[in-house]
């Protein structure tokens, strides 16, 4: 496959490169804004959790950093991530853990003691491919984001976060409903139909009266119960669904020709931001240098009648058993290739 084949398969990946976004997930936030007017005039203080590689922070600066009369922009944007991220003008970066009180305090200090108007989170954990585990870990990430949000968000504020729509998503809806007036499950048109990814838009932050923000114990997802949220019965907590983004816009599932109708002449562009150090980087280097441990070479024929040749099975660079989970989960460029060998596929697997 040529280097432009991903451009054909994925229109938003290509548009992101053309428009200078660090990841195509930028369009998802833009589409969410079209529907929910997230960046209204009242929004002055915004937190971007799990911000790397920074495409949502890019959207926030372009949408909110409007020059005021005295030439200074008004909105303050704080981006938090465990890993370092390339600097973005107008974004205050905190390299920190969202499960720590100190991180919440640091955010508030950048807002001069004022709470945030909007908290967004596009974080996704490393996936294992085991659905129940992935869904659980993603739920815990979302609840950790919710936990820090309860420390920094003003009453009436908005919280937007990525969710996986899996078997137990109604447990998450039930938990979020405790904290917000209105919880909507939103799917931007830039997110593929085939992906289980969606976003919860939680409006009107209104914690229970006796609730005291607490980082020392994690917020857990809830259990099914006999009455309001049944495992198999008709009563379930399901957030209303809303498809976001204009129908006349690009369709993330559609196959487009490289030369778009009425578009500029197609030109291949490299990604705006290369992948961040993946955990398997060293293994990939070893593999390309053919230095992964191999089955111990040939045995030696020593003498007649009793010497040995070892049985060898498979050379190291054989058929990979695993495709990347890209289609299902990935939204960021840095999680595109989960298994390094996916490029070696002789068979193509269209996504």
């Amino acid at each position: 496959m040529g280097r432009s084949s991903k451009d054909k398969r994925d229109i938003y990946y290509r548009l992101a490169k053309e428009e200078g976004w660090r990841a195509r997930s930028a369009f998802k936030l833009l589409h969410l804004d079209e529907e929910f007017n997230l960046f209204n005039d009242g929004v002055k203080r915004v937190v971007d959790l799990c911000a790397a590689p920074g495409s949502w922070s890019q959207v926030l600066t372009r949408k909110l950093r409007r020059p005021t009369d005295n030439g200074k922009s008004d909105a303050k944007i704080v981006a938090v991530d465990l890993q370092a991220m390339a600097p973005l003008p107008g974004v205050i970066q905190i390299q920190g853990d969202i499960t720590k009180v100190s991180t919440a305090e640091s955010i508030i200090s950048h807002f001069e003691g004022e709470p945030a108007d909007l908290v967004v989170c596009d974080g996704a954990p490393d996936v294992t491919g085991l659905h129940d585990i992935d869904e659980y870990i993603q739920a815990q990430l979302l609840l950790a984001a919710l936990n820090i949000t309860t420390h920094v968000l003003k009453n009436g504020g908005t919280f937007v976060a990525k969710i996986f729509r899996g078997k137990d998503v109604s447990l998450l809806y039930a938990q979020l409903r405790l904290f917000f007036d209105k919880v909507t499950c939103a799917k931007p048109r830039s997110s593929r139909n085939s992906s289980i990814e969606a976003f919860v838009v939680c409006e009107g932050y209104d914690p229970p009266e006796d609730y005291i923000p607490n980082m020392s114990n994690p917020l857990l997802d809830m259990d099914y119960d006999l009455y309001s949220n049944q495992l198999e019965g008709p009563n379930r907590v399901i957030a209303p669904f809303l498809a976001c983004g204009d129908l006349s816009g690009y369709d993330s599932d559609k196959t487009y020709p490289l030369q778009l109708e009425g578009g500029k002449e197609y030109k291949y562009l490299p990604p705006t931001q290369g992948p961040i150090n993946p955990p398997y980087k060293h293994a990939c280097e070893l593999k390309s240098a053919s230095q992964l441990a191999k089955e111990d070479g040939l045995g030696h024929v020593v003498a007649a009648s009793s010497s040995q040749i070892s049985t060898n099975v498979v050379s190291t660079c054989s058929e990979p058993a695993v495709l990347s989970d890209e289609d299902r989960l990935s939204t960021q460029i840095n999680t595109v290739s989960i298994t390094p060998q996916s490029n070696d596929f002789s068979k193509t697997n269209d996504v």
Partner: protein
Amino acid sequence: MFSTLWQSVPVTALHINDEYLYTGQGGTLSVYKICKGKPKYLEKRNVFNHAVIHGIKSFSLEEKQYIVLFGGKEMAILTIQDFYLVCHYKSKDWIWDVQPITKSTTLAIALAHNSCILFDWKKNEEICAFHCSIKCILYSAHFIGWNWEDLVLCAGTVFNQVVAWMPGKNKDVEQKIPLMLIPGHDGVIFDMHYNNQLQILLTASDDRSIRVWKCSMSNGNEQQAKCACVMYGHEARIWKVETLIVDGLVYVISISEDGLCITWLLSMNKEDIQFKVVKKLNLHSNLLSYASDGKDRFAVGCNNGAIYWYSLSEITSSNQCLEAAPFSKDQHGTPKIIKLLSLKAPSVLLYTDKGYVLCYDILLAKWKVVHHLSDYGSYAVMSVAPDGTLIAVGNTKGNVTILYLEKELNTTTLAKLESFSGKIQNISWYQKEMFVSGPSGQLNWYHVDTDVILVSKFVLPQAKHRWHMDALIVNSESQDHVICGDRRGSIHLFVNGQSVPVCTIHGVHGKHGVTSLDKHGNIIISTGRDGYWRQFCVNTSKIEMLTQHRAAQGMEWLENIKLENFRLYVYGFRGNKFVVWSKFSGNEMFSVTCGGCHRSWDFSTELSKFVFLKASQLNIVEVPENVFEESLVEVGFHNHQINCVRFLASYAHDDCHVDIIATASEDTKVIITKLLHNKDVCKAEVLHVIDDHCSNVRSIRVLTSSETDITKEILMVTVGGRATINVYNIQIQKLASNKVPCLVKHVATYKSGASPDMRFMDVAAWKSDNDGHMVAVACSDGKMRWFRLNDNTITLLSESRDTGHCYLVTSRINDHTLAAGTDGFVRIMTSEGSEVSRFRTNQSGVNAIAFCHMTFQGARHGCLATGGDDNSIRLTMLKFERGAVEEVSHCTVEDAHATQVTGLHLAESEFGAQLVSTSIDQRVTLWRISTFEDDDKTSLRCQHLGSKFTHIADVSCIDVIRDRYVISGRGFQVMT
């Protein structure tokens, strides 16, 4: 409602206790008894309704044995004897590990936020809970020890390190300080294993490495772990790692997502540890679970449902290779061709460049000159008849000498033929028939008995490499037909007496040639140097290809096929290795690094020998007796998401019920499976693996051509990525006596040359007025396309305009084509591509449609159900009149499911209609569709009747035949 008859889901847990193997698949525990070293299925029991079993352990207390299962937020304890449920516990948090505490009714439970609970399972209550001072989410946890006081919990944190702490120490302190921190991995840790005897901790990580740490966990002192060794060998994430000590040798076995099960051998020095890889088994699936008996046997469980069973001593033993005694090369020449012979004793027949035919008795290690062909030089072809008594040798001058070989190795020259005036290219045997290829494509057929008769002369068609490779005889309609495969890769059919072929399939095996032909019943199987084997049948002077199959990836040179115990084995070469590959398990049964395919070799299971020439040296490799013994305990299915499932047939015979099911997957394969149910057991058998798609297969449509009590004929259309359509004819024989229950014949292929990146998302098919069929395809470029299928060709007839949105589903309804896509609109079109009607049913993508007829306001109307990405199901009542379609009424269930609806099935019933829906939320829901009067207006109503949770993740499709339901996703499940 909905009881499960059969399911295939990932094998997430394995455990071996004494003579039993336990497996966890979804929420179901299965038990196998190990008889004569092999597990035999005993029974299964559904333990968790909602959670997936991720771990199984066993323990005993007061001479009673128990088994503990855990996964998700649930834990259960059963008695081993009778599976009596002693305790079922639901935790607030995810359970990563459970450890029974010796001589007590308690166990320790490790939770995902680095906390630990001491739990009394007799009283079913938590005794106490403790946290580690390092609070974060864990990806794995592993208990070391059996006493609460000195129990160590190793936690694999989100920060890529191991935190070891003691939950039972200093019981007044709620937050425990870690005993040790072990950083070093570049990724999260998925598994840990501690060997107390060696005092080493093994960690397996997302960074594709296994690390061995020297540390002592038993003394409870704070200390530092030392990384003694880093092992890179896997190419994807490593899920499980464990030590296995046999005869004082320390082995490490690791399993990974890349399909490899690696056996490492450690050598321990004072300071560091050295390692080497002893065995890499490639099981071609994501390997999820592992268990060993601690001695020699171990089991591996796969994502595709397969379970393998190995003996460490067997897999690490090397091939016995004998070096033949030398013979005088100066006198007799250099070996050129070898063949295995079963005479009195196993022997090797050898031809040298000086024209000598030698025989080597393997047991006595002795050479004997059998014959000397003084006028034969360094070039010759030699072939031995199947019974081993006739040897034919051909030379450059067109002569063929046929020798008769007696048991005492004496030869008589049976005939000297002057076949051609030029080089003999090849000689092959079929029983007593000999086929000899000469120059210019000449092919002579001789019958060899007490004398030699020239039966017929054939001429192969013009080609660069114009000689035959193998030939056999098929008797049909009292005429002798010869099928022959040539070096050009073509297959020809000759009739006795006619020199040119009556039928040719040109270049079917690629440019490098056909290697062998075999006959099994009425089916002819060919192998070739293109990595494929193909099935053919002969019908009235015509060869028809039925199906084609690939062996393991990388096996590009196939030599032969062998049927053993009704299972098919392929001989061939992968790189520099000779390989025997099993179609049944996908495993390599035997392999030898012989240097590759361009050499003389022979393989015989009767003699248990593989022989090859390397550097003019005869090498003899012993083939183990159990070479065809399969290590597969349970058969696996698809390695990835199944996109579509369809019933091909469902029928009863004797006291059994048979379901034949086709599944299409992201892994590019279509699998046809037979499920045989009788009273308590259900057995699954893979009948066919269709491997014609070069990208994912998205949809299957089935049309019944004919059905009687004994046979059923089906037309099956499959579509998928890379704009591909494949069509098959399938004949199902319902009688159990029939050896081929399902015959698959590939009919036609279509691939779009214009836009290869396009995906074909769904397909509808129907019989057209003239003989052929029509096929409508929903395409990812925003268009619908219509094709005509006639005989073996598929022609594009028409296409619709581009809607700007990817089409997802299509169906044939009342002479119209109905299609819907990611914009939430349903469009009803003619086969010429013009739109008859359009209405919006869902906010975004329509993933599923279903249709039935229903009486509404006293008239017969069409009822259409659409299920969307927006969690909703919409029912639309449609009136069809004179080519026009009109919406009469509709109703919507907004939150029919908690996630996108992916499958629907609608059937008319006495009260209106019955709808079954499936969704990614893993619920199968039954709905009643009825009508009601409201203000003189008739309206539709959709009532929830009940839901059932399923362990199939990413549910993609449902199909229904009478009272049987099949759903697909990550696995598949049949319900009733």
